[in-house]
């Protein structure tokens, strides 16, 4: 019997909704529970990137989402396929990245039976997704998928998981296109309160030492232009969190660089001395604040965020403002037009002068001697790429040097696992970013430890001709932990010495990529030039000073202004 034409299988409904949502790329890995979905996927124009490990699929979807501004999608099978995604999901959750994860599940009649490759992934990911679903009835599938995309991208974005049992994918039902999503219990607040906005203006007028602290929320709301406008019109210096790098041009004279544990001297000193801190799209992570009771102790704090739970969670604020960062900033900019601030140059002179003095005293510097300094590699990379590359990072010292020495002038160019701090994030994220931006140069700044956590994704890059570049700052240590051991554990380097590592040049070649190595400072530039200009994917292995530390450093739990400088 020929099936009714209006009857679609669950897999066909999934494909229909994906295409309605504008999905053209999926990162995934097939398996028994999703074989029907894959069979249908192959009939659509959607591009599938076959990763080598499901963790890589989520990080790639994360990198893709950040570089494209769209929702990243990944598709994996039940059981181990699903559990392997958990780290990636938790990372996307902490960084508020819109990702939809489709997992296969055993058939509904086997759920709860400890079936082969069965796991309660909805239970496992409940605390690390924005929301998740188990689809028990095929009739609900279309609506749930629509909701999943809507929830992932709206409000404070985040990952949403949809668990689809094999029989739901296989069975048929009548399908009618889904109405736009409306949910009674989920309505993010985009428009800020008008009266609160006017209070912000009044606080700016009263303030003598104001500053802005911008975070990932500015980038996620696509509010960088509005932020830049706001800061320049009010002549307020801007510091950013790690997630906020690029939200304000890094080379602007008003830019203070990054705040926090490895923030710049001037950013941290200014935070201690300011009398008004306008925090936009941040959540006051402990790596940012140091001791919270002494954080910005002289300042009134204005906190703008779309997520009410971020406000008054870690620090008390004088003026809370719930709303979308971009909309709030453009409303503020509109109000500013009508206000006469007087001679701003004169008003800000002493404050900006003070910041400039901090800049001179606590400048970032290092001596490039006979061994390669990791900072020199990142600075040279910045110079050669003229700040135009998309940079992804692994986690540890490599991540901090990337943030400190590559000056980000544009949003969506710095892709890092900021909240969860996932080693092994950078390479798959670079692959996702390269898929989203095929014409851009994408570079993963890595350490020799973290690159080995997802090195298998080099095969993915080669299979799809993605010319991602990996810069390994190779110190044969787990450098950040070693740094803590040096400074706070009397140089007992417990289990951080990675004495053995593969030959990364040969490894690159084994994967079919270009492998290059620099062991002396005079080779750094030529290796970078050769590696970056090659049409191939490349691994560049830089043998750097083994015991170089990241400075400035605020010891954990200390006040932000108590920095170790050398």
């Amino acid at each position, binding site marked *: 019997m020929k099936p009714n034409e209006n009857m679609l299988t669950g897999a066909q409904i999934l494909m229909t909704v994906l295409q309605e949502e504008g999905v053209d790329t999926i990162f995934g890995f097939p398996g028994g529970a999703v074989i029907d979905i894959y069979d249908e996927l192959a009939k659509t124009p959607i591009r599938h990137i076959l990763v080598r490990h499901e963790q890589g699929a989520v990080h790639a979807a994360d990198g893709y989402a950040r570089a494209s501004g769209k929702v990243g999608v990944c598709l994996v099978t039940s059981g181990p396929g699903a559990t392997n995604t958990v780290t990636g999901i938790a990372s996307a959750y902490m960084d508020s990245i819109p990702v939809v994860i489709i997992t296969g599940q055993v058939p509904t009649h086997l759920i709860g039976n400890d079936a082969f490759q069965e796991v309660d992934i909805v239970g496992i990911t409940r605390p690390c997704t924005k*929301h998740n679903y188990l689809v028990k009835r095929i009739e609900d599938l279309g609506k749930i998928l629509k909701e999943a995309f809507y929830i992932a991208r709206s409000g404070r974005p985040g990952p949403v998981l949809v668990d689809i049992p094999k029989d739901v994918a296989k069975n048929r039902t009548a399908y009618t296109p889904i109405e736009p999503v409306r949910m009674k219990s989920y309505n993010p607040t985009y428009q800020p309160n008008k009266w609160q906005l006017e209070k912000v203006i009044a606080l700016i007028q009263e303030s003598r030492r104001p500053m802005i602290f911008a975070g990932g929320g500015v980038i996620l709301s696509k509010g960088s232009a509005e932020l830049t406008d706001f800061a320049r019109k009010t002549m307020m210096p801007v510091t950013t969190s790690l997630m906020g790098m690029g939200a304000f041009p890094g080379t602007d004279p008003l830019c203070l660089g990054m705040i926090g544990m490895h923030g710049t001297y001037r950013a941290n000193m200014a935070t201690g001395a300011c009398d008004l801190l306008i925090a936009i799209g941040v959540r006051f992570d402990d790596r940012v604040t140091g001791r919270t009771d002494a954080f910005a102790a002289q300042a009134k704090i204005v906190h703008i965020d779309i997520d009410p739970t971020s406000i008054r969670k870690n620090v008390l604020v004088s003026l809370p403002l719930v709303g979308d960062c971009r909309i709030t900033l453009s409303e503020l900019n509109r109000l500013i037009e009508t206000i006469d601030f007087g001679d701003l140059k004169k008003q800000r002179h002493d404050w900006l002068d003070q910041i400039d003095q901090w800049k001179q005293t606590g400048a970032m510097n290092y001596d490039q001697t006979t061994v390669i300094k990791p900072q020199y590699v990142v600075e040279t990379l910045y110079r050669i790429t003229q700040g135009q590359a998309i940079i992804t990072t692994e986690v540890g010292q490599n991540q901090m040097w990337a943030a400190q020495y590559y000056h980000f002038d544009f949003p969506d160019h710095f892709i890092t696992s900021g909240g969860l701090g996932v080693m092994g994030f950078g390479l798959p994220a670079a692959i996702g970013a390269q898929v989203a931006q095929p014409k851009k140069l994408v570079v993963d700044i890595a350490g020799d430890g973290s690159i080995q956590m997802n090195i298998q994704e080099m095969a993915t890059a080669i299979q799809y001709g993605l010319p991602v570049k990996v810069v390994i700052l190779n110190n044969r240590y787990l450098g950040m932990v070693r740094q803590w051991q040096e400074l706070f554990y009397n140089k007992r380097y417990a289990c951080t010495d990675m004495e053995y590592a593969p030959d990364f040049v040969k490894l690159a070649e084994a994967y079919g990529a270009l492998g290059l190595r620099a062991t002396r400072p005079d080779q750094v530039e030529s290796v970078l030039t050769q590696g970056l200009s090659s049409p191939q994917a490349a691994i560049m292995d830089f043998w750097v000073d083994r015991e170089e530390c990241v400075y400035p450093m605020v010891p954990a739990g200390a006040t932000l202004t108590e920095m170790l400088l050398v």
Partner: protein
Amino acid sequence: MTEEKHVVTMLVDNQPGVLARVVGLFGGRGFNIESLCVAETTDPEISRITLVTRADPLVLEQIMKQLRKLINVIKVRDMDKSKAVQREMALICVKAKPEHRAEVLRIVDIFRCKVVDTGIEHYIIEVTGDEGKLAAIINLLKPIGIKKIARTGIVALFREPK
């Protein structure tokens, strides 16, 4: 800041896993739950969860915000005692030897509760009231000997305008 007892009620989607989201939130963020009560409302798609927590004002603010952030939670209220009716029911099984039977029945009478089961050596008493009333009757029955007790936890509703 001092910790105080709060009765928090919420309307939630009546779906599998919703209670796990609420309870998981408390566990994961280190908030405490002293009692918990869940049942359907007149709309079979919506359930009411009532829970009692002990928190200082800042933590309570986080609890309320975090609960509102859950997709399946429709409405959350802090049931301030001055504005809400709060009640709890308990079933108390009391040892009732002949010499104590009259005393137990006197207490039942004073507190206007009911004996719902009886035997040679026990009574099961059904008592409904606010926290104070339950504490008082438990206090009086303790010396006589409480064999078992089952409490519903507090439920609450805002008073309507007079």
